[in-house]
């Protein structure tokens, strides 16, 4: 082939311009630079501009060689196109600009734009063919590259997926191992409660195999004693009402035993929020629970008798009172053994303890029928809680039964012990009361049962309580009343029956109370004796009476009546009595013969030792001694003889039976006449109390009674009234 030989100088048949070969030719470098500038930045290639230029220079050389070669091979363009793509000129824009720059700038840069004629046509055709083959090489390589890269990235995806799958399987296996081997019980159920999966720990906890549990409903694991509210909580979870539960739950083992568990359950939802699973984790806390129960039992029971202790009792009472059913009633029997201390002291604590246990057993048997709670409050105190109580009668029945259960003697260590108990019963509606009120009432009532004579029950009585409260307040205010001079004396004449002369007066104390008005001695003397205030009060009465009597003496010397003052047992036993009396007498200057002291029969009869000495001493001083209310107590008549007594005051009850002649009670008549003659035999005078009719006065005079006292004869009055009699 004669083709175009660019190495041959110009002047060949075609008039081909001679050009230096390849890169060495002038213009190639310039063209490469132009090309580089044109396509720079159109594709990402990891080349600096210098590198790019040299890369393109090579390509440009190959194109130019092909263009001028004798034997034209358009395949070169194709190779160049591929080379570009392989160098990562992947942008279509690179191709476009390359084609353009070849068409517009190559021939001018090579200095061939002047070629004319058939050579020019040949050049243009060759260039076009090269451009075309470059474009198809570029396109083909780009398609290959694209497909390769797509293939590569898809392979990468597959590989990555495989790895992810593998990791997922590994993680699943790990989870399965964790699930299966976890020490905590785990179960998964569907929203309806059907068990999908459980682990070994849960199955073992409940006595199943894992297989047996699959498909069961979680309800079948419930313990029958589980409260109904618990189920509601679970239903809420299943229905999506709550997402988590933490609670203590009792489950039932296959052998029927209860398993206490700490449960954490959660609801698992899918992406739309629809409940999918319930997952529950169970920790077996049965042992801990039993320990807690034991501790709680210890805290709420009495170690000696095993009965509930006061803590538990108060808990239950509280519960009973908290009820808001207004028709409910509650009963409390507060029981205290009578004389338990004696057993303890004489037979020892050991026997005492055994006795308490025996009694506890008796009481348990007697209350357990009604299902009442029996608790030991401490010491020898027990309490029975009747809640709910039908009515007061039923609470009393319980108390009665308790007392009866103690009737049989108890045998302990060879001793036959008989114990009784006193019980305070409180029974009332639960509404409007409190634990404190109930217990206070029970305490008071127990005290009543004791003071009423033991071995009995007493029922709480609000009126009695109110009275006692009033008594209590009265006795509490008495000392101040004495200081403030709220007490005063009235005097009732003692009249000689033969001639109705007033020979003496009895001083009677009164209390002008700021709220209750004037109180008679029966309202407060008893209290004063209990509190001991009787001693200063009695001293005041004595002094006041003596002062008054002295005044009468001064007014009517020799004719004035003596004054008779009551002396309480407490006073007689008071060691200062004789000193007080003589001090008062010397202070007031009253002659001892003008003073009479009245003592009750029992005070005098029981006396021995210092009190009796005091009595003798007073008599020796010349003071008259009278026995008050004679005939109501037990009198040893022979003893009476040796006492320094001057007068018997016959109790009003004997006088009551005396009526005109035949209407009179013959027994009373006989007693009075016997007593009168007896007194006279002993050289004592007799004063009859409580004379209310003329018939009584007459009968007494006829029977030889010396003096009389009573409303019929004269009412008590102020000191001035006494002067009127004299």
């Amino acid at each position, binding site marked *: 082939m004669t083709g175009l030989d660019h190495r041959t100088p110009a002047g060949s048949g075609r008039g081909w311009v001679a050009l230096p070969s390849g890169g060495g030719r002038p213009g190639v470098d310039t063209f490469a630079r132009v090309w580089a500038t044109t396509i720079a930045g159109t594709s990402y290639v*990891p080349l*600096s*501009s210098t590198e790019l230029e040299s890369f393109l220079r090579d390509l440009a050389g190959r194109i130019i060689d092909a263009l001028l070669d004798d034997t034209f091979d358009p395949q070169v363009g194709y190779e160049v196109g591929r080379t570009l793509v392989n160098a990562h000129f992947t942008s279509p824009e690179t191709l476009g600009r390359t084609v353009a720059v070849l068409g517009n700038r190559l021939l001018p840069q090579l200095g061939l734009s002047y070629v004319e004629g058939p050579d020019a046509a040949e050049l243009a055709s060759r260039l076009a063919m090269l451009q075309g083959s470059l474009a198809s090489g570029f396109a083909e390589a780009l398609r290959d590259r694209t497909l390769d890269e*797509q293939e590569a*990235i898809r392979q990468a995806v597959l590989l990555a997926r495989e790895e992810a799958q593998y990791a997922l399987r590994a993680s699943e296996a790990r989870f399965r191992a964790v699930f299966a081997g976890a020490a905590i019980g785990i179960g998964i159920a569907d929203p309806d409660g059907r068990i999908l999966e459980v682990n070994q720990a849960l199955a073992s906890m409940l006595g199943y195999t894992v297989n047996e549990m699959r498909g069961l409903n979680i309800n079948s694991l419930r313990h029958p004693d589980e409260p109904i509210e618990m189920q509601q909580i679970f239903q809420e979870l299943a229905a999506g009402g709550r997402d988590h539960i933490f609670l203590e739950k009792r489950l039932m083992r296959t052998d029927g035993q209860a398993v206490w568990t700490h449960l954490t359950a959660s609801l698992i939802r899918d992406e739309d929020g629809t409940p999918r699973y319930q997952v529950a984790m169970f920790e077996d806390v049965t042992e801990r629970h039993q320990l807690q129960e034991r501790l709680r039992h210890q805290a709420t029971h009495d170690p000696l008798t095993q009965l509930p202790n006061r803590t538990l009792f108060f808990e239950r009472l509280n519960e009973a009172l908290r009820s808001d059913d207004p028709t409910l009633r509650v009963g409390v029997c507060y029981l205290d053994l009578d004389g338990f201390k004696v057993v303890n002291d004489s037979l020892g604590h050991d026997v005492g303890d055994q006795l308490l246990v025996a009694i506890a057993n008796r009481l348990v048997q007697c209350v357990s029928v009604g299902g009442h709670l029996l608790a030991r409050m401490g010491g020898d105190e027990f309490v029975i809680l009747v809640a709910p109580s039908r009515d007061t009668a039923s609470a009393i029945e319980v108390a009665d039964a308790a007392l009866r259960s103690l009737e049989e003697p108890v045998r302990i260590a060879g001793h036959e012990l008989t114990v009784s108990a006193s019980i305070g019963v409180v029974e009332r509606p639960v509404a409007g009361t409190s634990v404190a009120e109930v217990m206070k009432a029970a305490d008071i009532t127990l005290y009543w049962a004791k003071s009423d004579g033991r071995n009995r029950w007493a029922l709480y009585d609000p009126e009695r309580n109110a009275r006692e409260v009033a008594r209590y307040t009265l006795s509490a205010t008495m000392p101040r009343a004495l200081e403030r001079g709220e007490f005063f004396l009235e005097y009732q004449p003692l009249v000689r029956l033969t001639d109705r002369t007033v020979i003496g007066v009895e001083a009677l104390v009164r209390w002008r109370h700021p709220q209750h008005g004037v109180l008679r001695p029966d309202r407060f003397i008893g209290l004063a004796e209990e509190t001991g205030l009787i001693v200063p009060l009695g001293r005041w009465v004595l002094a006041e009476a003596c002062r008054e009597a002295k005044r009468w003496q001064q007014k009517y010397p020799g004719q004035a009546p003596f004054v008779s003052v009551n002396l309480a047992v407490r006073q007689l036993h008071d060691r200062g009595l004789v000193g007080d009396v003589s001090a008062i007498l010397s202070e007031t200057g009253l002659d001892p013969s003008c003073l009479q002291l009245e003592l009750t029969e029992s005070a005098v009869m029981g006396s021995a030792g210092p009190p009796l000495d005091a009595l003798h001493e007073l008599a020796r001083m010349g003071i008259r001694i009278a026995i008050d209310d004679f005939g109501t107590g037990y009198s040893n008549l022979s003893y009476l003889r040796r006492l320094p007594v001057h007068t018997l005051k016959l109790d009003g009850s004997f006088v009551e039976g005396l009526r005109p002649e035949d209407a009179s009670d013959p027994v009373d008549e006989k007693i009075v006449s016997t007593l009168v003659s007896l007194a006279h035999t002993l050289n004592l005078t007799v004063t009859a109390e409580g004379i209310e009719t003329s018939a009584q006065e007459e009968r007494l005079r006829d029977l030889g009674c010396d003096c009389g006292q009573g409303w019929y004869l004269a009412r008590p009055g102020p000191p001035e009234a006494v002067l009127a009699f004299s």
Partner: protein
Amino acid sequence: MERPSWAPEDIDLERPSVARVYDFYLGGSHNFAVDRELGRRVIETFPLLPKTLQENRAFLRRAVRFCVEAGIRQFLDIGSGIPTVGNVHEVAQQVDPTIKVVYVDIDPVAVAHSRAILKGNEYATAIRADFRQPEVILSHPELQRLIDLRQPVALLLVALLHFFPDTEEVQRTIARFRDALASGSYLVISHASADTQPTPLKVAELYARSGTPMAMRTKAEIARFFEGFELVEPGLVLGLDWRLEPEEAVDDNPERHSGYCGVGKKP
């Protein structure tokens, strides 16, 4: 998106991947329709982005060369993406074929592809890990096999950090790497910045909508990531200003939108 290692992420081809979109920007075909769709939309708002990324790659190339010349023989490239051309191992191993390169990316596909490419290259490897777990990366057996942490390492965080909006976290993470690296190690960072972008919010928003939050930080914020390193000349600058080779043609487009680039040396 963080996932504990026990629950591997599924490969979701319905969502664009940062790595594949990046490949698309660079003219690669390692991408799918979703990736190209996001890529085209970003290019619509920011037509110069491909060029910017080319500049970023050019910076990466120059920075790697710089490190190799400085004597570094171990590279840790985190957020390496899908290998295209001019990858770190190619650039580095051209000078010394025994230079060690460990690529790290969170994208499992990118990692799988990297592994395929690196088959037969005994000095380079790719591992899948999260930049925010330095201990996991540094103790990874593949890394341990290739890299001796007692010797200096070049840590490349190129076009990565703007994908973590939590600045504190980035700071802490870099500090943990820094403390584990030998003295004489290098830190290479390039980071998109609002300072240099005409439409930063738009771009960030497009990424955010596709599930990838972006944080265009200011120069000062980026500079703070070099705490504990000494910036080499010329400091933290635009990509085109970082040690451009003298004969290299400057783009005729006067606008410069590349992010900030810098290289620091651990004293």
